[in-house]
């Protein structure tokens, strides 16, 4: 587990952190290219590649038709050939039009054909405005699929460090950036800062209980921790940063340390990654638990476009406060 404190001076946004990591790796590896919609002029819908086409040319930042199956196939075939493409699917919801290319093909090539598939599929994820077709949390599906790795950074520092690692990896990576974090500023590492997948980050240490989470829910957890502190409860926050590989060492150590653990995200709880974590952590650490691990997640319902309905479907900071109080009651 990392507890590194970022030390650089600049404060770029979460999206700019992506640009920074990609730029550095593109300079070093001429076989990296980016393919997606509205990338060259607009710089992507979240400014995640703004200016890169102007710097590296349109052969390395390619505007694509809205054609998700072909976009991922382009990435898959070129990765098998020897390139290291970044396929930008804009919203992860759109990956559903390329699920065969991702799950049947990219994820299985190494296993069947002993051939690396160095492919990054980047997309914006998480719940915000936009309704049922722009707010799916599909990370559990990808983490469930053998052959795929899944990054879910919650801050600029991790975006840069993780994308740099992904761009040196011979495996397909699903890189999910939360839409509500796009403009959030934070420090980033330098060109030599790589964050290994499967290494969680302790956002805040605590004495009484822990919240294990990722993505935007880390922001909610920090708010919950402030509220809980006012009530005399000192909660630790663990940011998983990647869902596969999963930092099971940190999860186990956290469960053993506190025996009171909340696992939270904003995906529908049924069959989710929080279920995986709670189940395996309980199996391994049962005698350390003071009571059941409490999960906090979304309703098993499509997201609504109405902002209040959408918010009501996913965990609030207050839901996390209540969950921590529940584990404190054991």
């Amino acid at each position, binding site marked *: 587990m990392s507890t590194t404190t970022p030390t650089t001076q600049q404060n770029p946004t979460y999206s700019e952190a992506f640009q920074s990591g990609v730029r550095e790796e593109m300079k070093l590896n001429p*076989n990296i*290219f980016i393919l997606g919609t509205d990338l060259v002029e607009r710089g992507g819908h979240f400014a995640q590649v703004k200016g890169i086409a102007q710097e590296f040319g349109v*052969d390395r930042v*390619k505007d*694509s*038709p809205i*054609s*998700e*199956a*072909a*976009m*991922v*196939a*382009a*990435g*898959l*075939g*070129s*990765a*098998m*050939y*020897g*390139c290291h493409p970044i396929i930008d699917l804009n919203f992860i919801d759109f990956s559903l039009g390329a699920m*065969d*290319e991702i799950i*049947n*093909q990219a994820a299985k*090539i*190494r*296993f*069947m*054909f*002993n*051939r*690396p598939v160095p492919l990054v599929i980047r997309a914006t994820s998480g719940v915000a405005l936009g309704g049922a077709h722009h707010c799916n949390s599909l990370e559990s599906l990808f983490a469930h699929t*053998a*052959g795929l*790795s899944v990054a879910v950074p919650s801050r600029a520092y991790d975006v840069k460090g993780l994308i740099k*690692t*992904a761009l040196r*990896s*011979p*495996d397909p*990576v699903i890189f999910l950036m939360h839409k509500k974090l796009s403009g959030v500023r934070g420090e980033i590492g330098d060109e030599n800062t790589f*964050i*290994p*997948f*499967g*290494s969680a980050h302790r956002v805040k240490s605590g004495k009484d209980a822990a919240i294990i989470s990722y993505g935007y829910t880390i922001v909610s957890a920090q708010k919950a921790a402030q509220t809980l502190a006012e009530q005399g409860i000192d909660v630790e926050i663990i940011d998983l940063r*990647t869902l*596969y*590989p*999963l*930092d*099971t*060492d940190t999860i186990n150590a956290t469960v053993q340390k506190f025996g009171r653990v909340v696992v939270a995200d904003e995906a529908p709880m049924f069959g989710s990654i929080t279920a995986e974590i709670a189940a395996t952590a309980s199996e391994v650490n049962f005698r350390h638990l003071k009571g059941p691990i409490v999960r906090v997640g979304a309703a098993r319902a499509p997201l609504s476009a109405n902002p209040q309905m959408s918010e009501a479907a996913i965990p609030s900071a207050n839901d996390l406060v209540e969950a921590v109080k529940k584990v404190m009651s054991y």
Partner: protein
Amino acid sequence: MTTDSKWGKETLRQMLLIRNFEETADKLTLRGKVPGGMHNSSGQEAVAVGVMSALDPKDVIATTHRSHHHTIAKGMPVNIVMAELFTKATGCSGGRGASMHLADVENGHFGGNGIVGAGVGIAMGAALGIKQMGHKKVAVGFVGDGGVNTGRTWEAVNMAVIYKLPLIIIVDNNQYAVETFVERVTGGNDIAKRGAGFGLPSFTIDGQDVEEVHKHTSEARNRALAGEGPTFINALTYRYYGHNVGEKGQYRTQEEIADWRSHRDPIDRFSAKLISEGALTQADYEAMINSVAKEIEEAVDFAEKSPLPDVSTILDGVDSGLLGARK
């Protein structure tokens, strides 16, 4: 046009090798030697050999669930193909693939596929890789008449056109998607016209004429290498057996099958042409048939004697393990 004798003999031999492989493997499958069954390509040899004889060995292909003929024509030794059908450790995919997942990526075979229509997309991606890296090669994506009704195939064709990729799309059109006749399920009933609608050269050709397939592929390859982009070729052919081994459907008549076998067989046509041109003697032809049969016998022997994969390796190669701290 007179056929070059050396090229003609090698081309004929390849088709005979594929035919014997398929007839042999079919029987072995019925005897339970091929886990998961196989898709017999007998009758479709000219498409595979015609295309592959026009390629450079370093060119890339990606293909379909029916890919033994493409794989053998691409140059994979038949013993390795047979061992993979048997799911033996010595097969090209170490027994993890069997009939539908033959591949040798290092040598430009980007895989058969269990998913209809997936091969064109993978070949398109390879063509993009070729272009990005500035190499002088082409990629060929095979698809069947069933696959041309999948959206992903046309997405890939469109992308190849807009990026002017060095891609050749070959419809290995045996006219039946499992048991469904192509005309029943193909709107407009003109596959080449669909291709033309995407703005690339598009042809329907006689897929039972190995020289015609070779010629069209060569021309397509030259265009691709000249930077002129992809070509779409709909090669009409026919499969003599069921979709899967042992299937005897009622969806076509025995007369239809007999007609294709007796009047349009690609091997009979080409061998007759070579003999009539004096490029091949009857004795040469018989020797070739015997030599091919021996090669396939040896392949079966190799597959039979090869070890099974070690089941303790089922987690090996799922990912590189290089991403980080996973235990």
